[in-house]
């Protein structure tokens, strides 16, 4: 991130990482919205969008009144997307397109994968990270305890 936008915006890396939590739900959320519209449930889709928008704005204002940080904005958007996804799941389960097992599997395996990846990434960081410009690749390939 500093390589692209300059060292003044080095903090953007951490916030970008937080924002990408939403990417765990965004693609399937968009697909589920498309499925709802294909099933002629545009009004339901619009209602879910409005609920998500209200939740997002309310959480951001409530959060910022306590903590003035971009993390509040990113987490609020993630929670509103989670609410959006859960509402879609509810409608699709009621319409028998999905089962409760499908929905639980999605959330369980997504959470398990992300937690496992985050925990393991710190152990294997030397393998999966790209070397920064100007830094010898040998520093990245050295074992963590050296």
């Amino acid at each position, binding site marked *: 991130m500093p390589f692209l936008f300059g060292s003044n915006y080095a903090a953007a890396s951490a916030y*970008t990482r937080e924002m990408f939590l939403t*990417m765990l739900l965004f693609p399937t959320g968009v697909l589920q919205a498309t499925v709802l519209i*294909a099933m002629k449930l545009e009004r339901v889709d619009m209602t879910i969008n409005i609920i998500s928008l209200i939740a997002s704005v309310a959480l951001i204002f409530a959060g910022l009144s306590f903590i003035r940080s971009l993390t509040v904005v990113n987490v609020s958007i993630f929670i509103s997307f989670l609410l959006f996804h859960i509402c879609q799941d509810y409608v699709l389960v009621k319409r028998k397109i999905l089962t409760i097992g499908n929905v639980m599997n999605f959330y369980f395996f997504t959470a398990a994968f992300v937690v496992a990846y985050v925990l393991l990434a710190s152990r294997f960081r030397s393998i999966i990270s790209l070397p920064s410009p100007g830094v010898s690749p040998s520093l990245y390939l050295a074992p963590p305890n050296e």
Partner: protein
Amino acid sequence: MLSLVDVAVYEISFRVFSVFQILPVIVSASVFPQLVALYNSGDMIQFKAAYKRYSYSFWFYGLFVYTFMYSFQER
């Protein structure tokens, strides 16, 4: 409220995010006619099968993009 630097940082994060959000939007718009045709045909088994097939692809895309960004962002 937040400072102007925070707004700039948010804008940078969102620019990167918007690059990766384009693909699901394009693909979902592309599969929409097929989903409508399957739903209108009344063949719910095919409709559910198509939805599940696309759903797995979208799910893996989300996981891939998140792990990619997690790994390649400097701390």
